[in-house]
């Protein structure tokens, strides 16, 4: 590797990691938004993944591959507990229950001795790196592009545009809703585990309300017409505060503002193009 590239990667290491991890989080938000639902539990799922993985690594010395699997399984279970009862109800219930999940988990992390209380866990070994973070992001992107080109993707888009009509045309709404939520929880959990294993330190405040809303702002800025939108949104909102230093202190104000502007004036986001379908016959 050329020396200048080496230097560059070294000085901006944590920023580059953040780009990949936030990209994964944005995709986890995309899966749910893509079928017209709203989950505000992304930060909570991420926290569950992060704490599960950190505890397994620190206390039991579990192999990293198993750690990653567990960090996806635990949030998936939480998604089922919250998701199954809200499936038959309107989207409002899922949104409220997932915000509640975030709050209650934060309280649990702060109060439990196992998770290190308000101080969190530190000294997590650096087991993840560029290859696994960006590999996971790339795989997820490819998978979502393939899905949106398929029958499945058409069903998802139909649900987003008009749920009643989609249901009438034979789309099994509950099955899609729970699958989307579980996949989204798994992705967020994975992102949490990877983040814990590159930053060596996690604390309950990383997974609160601010984080949940920030993840939503990635997806809404980029737009949810295609899986690329949310990733672009995540990259912009991760880089911008670094480039514009004055913005740094008002980062959260800005993220909130982005959501307001996106919903009111820019419903298709910055990347409005949709992905074409294969085998579409007239």
């Amino acid at each position: 590797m050329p020396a200048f590239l080496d230097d560059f990667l070294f000085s901006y290491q944590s920023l580059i990691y953040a780009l990949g991890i936030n990209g994964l989080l944005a995709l986890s938000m995309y899966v749910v938004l893509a079928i017209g639902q709203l989950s505000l539990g992304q930060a909570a799922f991420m926290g569950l993944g992060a704490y599960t993985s950190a505890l397994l690594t620190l206390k039991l010395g579990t192999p990293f591959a198993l750690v990653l699997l567990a960090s996806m399984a635990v949030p998936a279970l939480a998604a089922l507990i919250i998701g199954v009862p809200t499936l038959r109800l309107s989207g409002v219930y899922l949104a409220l229950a997932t915000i509640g999940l975030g709050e209650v988990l934060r309280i649990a992390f702060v109060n439990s001795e196992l998770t290190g209380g308000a101080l969190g866990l530190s000294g997590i070994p650096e087991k993840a790196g560029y290859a696994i973070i960006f590999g996971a992001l790339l795989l997820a992107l490819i998978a979502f592009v393939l899905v949106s080109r398929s029958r499945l993707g058409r069903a998802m888009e139909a649900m987003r545009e008009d749920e009643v009509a989609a249901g009438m045309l034979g789309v099994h709404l509950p099955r899609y809703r729970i699958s989307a939520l579980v996949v989204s929880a798994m992705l967020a959990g994975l992102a949490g585990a990877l983040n814990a294993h590159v930053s060596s330190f996690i604390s309950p405040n990383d997974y609160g309300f601010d984080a949940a809303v920030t993840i939503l702002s990635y997806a809404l800025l980029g737009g949810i017409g295609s899986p690329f939108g949310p990733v672009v949104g995540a990259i912009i909102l991760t880089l911008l505060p670094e480039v514009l230093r004055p913005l740094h202190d008002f980062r959260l104000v800005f993220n909130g503002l982005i959501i307001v502007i996106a919903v009111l004036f820019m419903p298709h986001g910055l990347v409005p193009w949709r992905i074409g379908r294969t085998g579409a016959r007239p």
Partner: protein
Amino acid sequence: MLAQQLVNGIISGATYALFALGFTLMFGVLNVINLTYGVYFSTGALIALYATRNFAFPILLALPLAAVATGLIAVVIDGLLLTPLRRKKAPELASLMVTLGATLLLYSLMTAFIGTDIQRFPPAAIDSSAIEIGGVRVSRSQILIVGTAFAMVALLLALMRGTRLGLAIRALAENPDAARLMGVDVTLVTFFVSFVSGTLGAAAGILIGLNYNAIQPYMGEVMMLKGFAVIIIGGLGDIRGALIAGLILGLLEGLTAGYVASSLKDAVGFLLLVLTLWFRPVGLFGRAAVKRA
């Protein structure tokens, strides 16, 4: 011990009920989940704090002043964010998202300017002299809290059931288009409902601020968790349900803190919320029509 826990439970339960009332009113009439509601809770407490601390207002004057000021803020926020979406007939999750963004914006603006340190009412504002009845201690502030909560609830019920304005509000809740055709000024009634909700949220914030005497911008966020629990347990949009669910939550939290562990207190609401979703999504009384998708 038990009697004291029950009394403490009723005091926090009364404030939860008051808080959830404005939230459920907003949903029941305007059909939006307005997440900036938690901000009104913090704003009310902060305005009352500044009025008593920096301008030496007596608390009995600061309370209504801060509540009305916050009610006006709620009207402005509704006009800026939700009215445009209503006009476009946007899906209900759009309004949830826009208020979510606004909530983060407002909280972080508040913390940027006043920080997250806990601030307290001046000692003179709080009358902590207690009355003891049969071994149960109740401070005069706590009596003010419960009294105000019950007075506001009674006023609201009288307004909804006994006045033409209340009739217009109920008509709007039932069917906005029909209400408009019957001559209800929908915009005006919408703003009025926002105002009342903001006032209720702020009043709850001031009362809880008085009870615990710890005020900071993010206090509304923790409260929102209880708000969600109460309105879902009581049934979305059900005023009587919210009142009773609020009291139940306060009592159960008091008992949990007294007999199980005080650190588990804040998890009670969420547990009840999940149980309600699994077993009785229509809420306690089953009157709120569950919005099936």
